């Protein structure tokens, strides 16, 4: 079992190549490769693939964190116009940092995934999709 971050790193490098190769196998209807294609699909749909692109750049995030605390401190003393903007900011922070369906619009689409794949994949894959749709926050549980 590989870590999510490691899988994401591998897939960023080779995802396009893999998809091309796998799609050739998929059209030949070879079940294990179709399963593998599904794994790549789940991987690129998972938050770890998209969210962290420059983990080493801590300075930028540190600046943003300073901005965040500065804005939070302003809630008490600023006039109501500025306060309204601060509330909007807090709303965005909560929205962005809430894990799951609220923050990640792609997860919401997962319920339609089985419709798109239904005619193309075998029973085993559709079973995995059902598990995935039941636990959209834990891609690692089925991979």
């Amino acid at each position, binding site marked *: 079992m590989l870590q999510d971050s490691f899988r994401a790193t591998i897939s960023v490098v080779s995802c396009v190549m893999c998809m091309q190769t796998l799609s050739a196998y998929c059209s030949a209807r070879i079940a294990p490769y179709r399963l593998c294609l599904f794994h790549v699909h789940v991987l690129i749909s998972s938050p770890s693939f998209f*969210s962290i692109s420059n983990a080493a750049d801590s300075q930028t995030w540190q*600046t943003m964190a300073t901005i965040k605390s*500065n804005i939070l401190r302003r809630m008490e003393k600023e006039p109501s116009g500025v306060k309204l903007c601060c509330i909007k900011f807090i709303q965005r922070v909560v929205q962005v940092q809430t894990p799951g369906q609220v923050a990640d619009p792609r997860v919401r689409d997962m319920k339609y995934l089985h419709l798109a794949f239904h005619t193309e994949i075998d029973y085993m894959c559709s079973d995995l999709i059902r598990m995935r749709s039941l636990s959209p926050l834990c891609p690692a549980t089925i991979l």
Partner: protein
Amino acid sequence: MQPTTQETISQLEKARKLALGDAAYYPQIVPGVLPIIGPAAALDLRRWGADFLAETFSSPAVSADAKQNMSLQVVHMLRQYLETTGEDSAVIKSVVQTATSIYQLVFKHT
């Protein structure tokens, strides 16, 4: 001879109209505008600059990639604005709006 604040604003306004006409100009205009509208600039320039940044990052015409690149250039200036004591309320309002727009971009970047 240094141009007056009004002259500078009218030039900046021309650049803004250009970007409003074609959003592809934003990535070139924003880095050019930043040194002019810094925390040490005149009040009118700071107000114009903060409004311009809020408008840029809330514009649906600008692509997410372009916004992400620009957000990294802008984030330090937003911090400077917020840390200036006694900063104008209108400037702070636009700066907070900009911070709201770029929060998810910076979160995604790091």
